[in-house]
């Protein structure tokens, strides 16, 4: 230790900055450190590039998935145009409908006129809709699980219709709420389609809810065939007053 007395205030900063390297430590290997730093500088650039590639790939994948889902949904929501009872069989035979049944557990129908009676045939797990005339009102019809015998009066839920206009097409769907129902031709049941509730006798009477449907009323009647899994409904869509 030196014994000097300068009389000046001690300057820590200047004293410490006189040091060239760490005391008692090996010299700093600048070459190795530079290599590391250069690698890091280079690596970071590559990482940025990779991130952009990944982002692009992710965007493409999301786009592809969205498109796939969109088209799958379109396929699933295959519209069954059933304006006359005669067409039911033909419609059921279409492969797209079979696919629709498998996926959506129901049938989708396009209804295209104001005054119409829709016949809904239910046998086992299948549902079929027919309209005597074309109609414009559209409703999503959810059929109850007919196997639930404990329910005293089975309800048929009809969602509110879309606002109609003359040019637009609308979609109505009927689906079993609990179980997929088999679609059969209405003639296969061999039963008259009437709106007499008395014909139902000992069987459950199905009520249709949401009777407003743009001031049009719906009435539904079940006609069982002795088989608890079979039923027929008639839905009347009357013109607004």
């Amino acid at each position, binding site marked *: 230790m030196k014994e000097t007395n300068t009389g000046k205030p001690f300057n820590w900063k200047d004293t410490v*900055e006189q040091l060239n390297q*760490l*005391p008692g430590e090996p010299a*700093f290997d600048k070459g190795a450190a530079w290599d590391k730093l*250069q690698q890091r500088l280079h690596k*970071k650039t590559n990482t940025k590039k990779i991130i952009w590639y990944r982002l692009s790939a992710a965007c493409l994948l999301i786009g592809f998935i969205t498109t796939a889902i969109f088209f799958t949904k379109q396929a699933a929501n295959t519209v069954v145009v059933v304006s006359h009872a005669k067409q039911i069989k033909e419609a059921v035979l279409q492969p797209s409908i079979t696919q629709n049944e498998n996926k959506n557990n129901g049938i989708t129908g396009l209804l295209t006129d104001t005054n119409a009676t829709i016949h809904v045939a239910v046998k086992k797990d299948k549902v079929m809709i027919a309209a005597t005339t074309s109609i414009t009102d559209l409703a999503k019809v959810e059929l109850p699980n007919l196997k639930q015998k404990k329910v005293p009066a089975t309800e048929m839920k009809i969602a509110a219709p879309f606002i109609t206009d003359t040019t637009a097409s609308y979609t109505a769907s009927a689906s079993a709420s609990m179980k997929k129902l088999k679609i059969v031709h209405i003639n296969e049941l061999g039963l008259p389609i009437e709106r007499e509730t008395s014909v139902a006798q000992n069987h459950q009477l199905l009520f249709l809810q949401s009777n407003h449907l743009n001031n049009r009323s719906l009435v539904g009647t079940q006609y069982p065939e002795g088989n608890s899994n079979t039923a027929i409904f008639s839905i009347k869509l009357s013109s607004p007053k």
Partner: protein
Amino acid sequence: MNLQQLIKEAKQGSSAAEKCLFDEMADSMLLVCCRYVKNREDAEEILLDGFFKFFKNMSSFQFQQDAALYNWVKKIMINECLMFLRKKNSFSMVTEKEADDVALQEDALSNLSAAEIFSLIIQLPVGYRTVFNLSVMEDMDHKEIAALLGIAEGTSRSQLSKAKSLLQQMLIQKGVTYERNKYR
């Protein structure tokens, strides 16, 4: 080649210029890092992080003079060190009542070599050392230190006082005389 020319070339993407700048400043910056972070490996890692940021942000730097460049790089290094210490939760500073200000006998200190002074500083606990470095070595006032470290000004003052007290004790062990001044 002077620093201005090196900066100009480095801005244009010259790797050789970057290396020259690194070689020029690495030693002094490592010392700065070691003053804040005791561990040599950590200090070297911080040095690389600091230079990485320096090279990445070089385009925004307007060269005026060598000292300004050194100060800028030094500031980057100090910030990196503080970030590192924060991550490690090294600051365990609680608000304490201000301790008596301690004045070390400057004549005695001037008898110490730079290496001895450096050794004394890095022997301080991390909280004391950080405040001491910022206050004494970087000439920051307590308000700035408090804002930088997220502590109260009083805490900064007390940490500095304690750092100086501890340095006194170390100096006693080294046989250096000291005096104690009470301001309150």
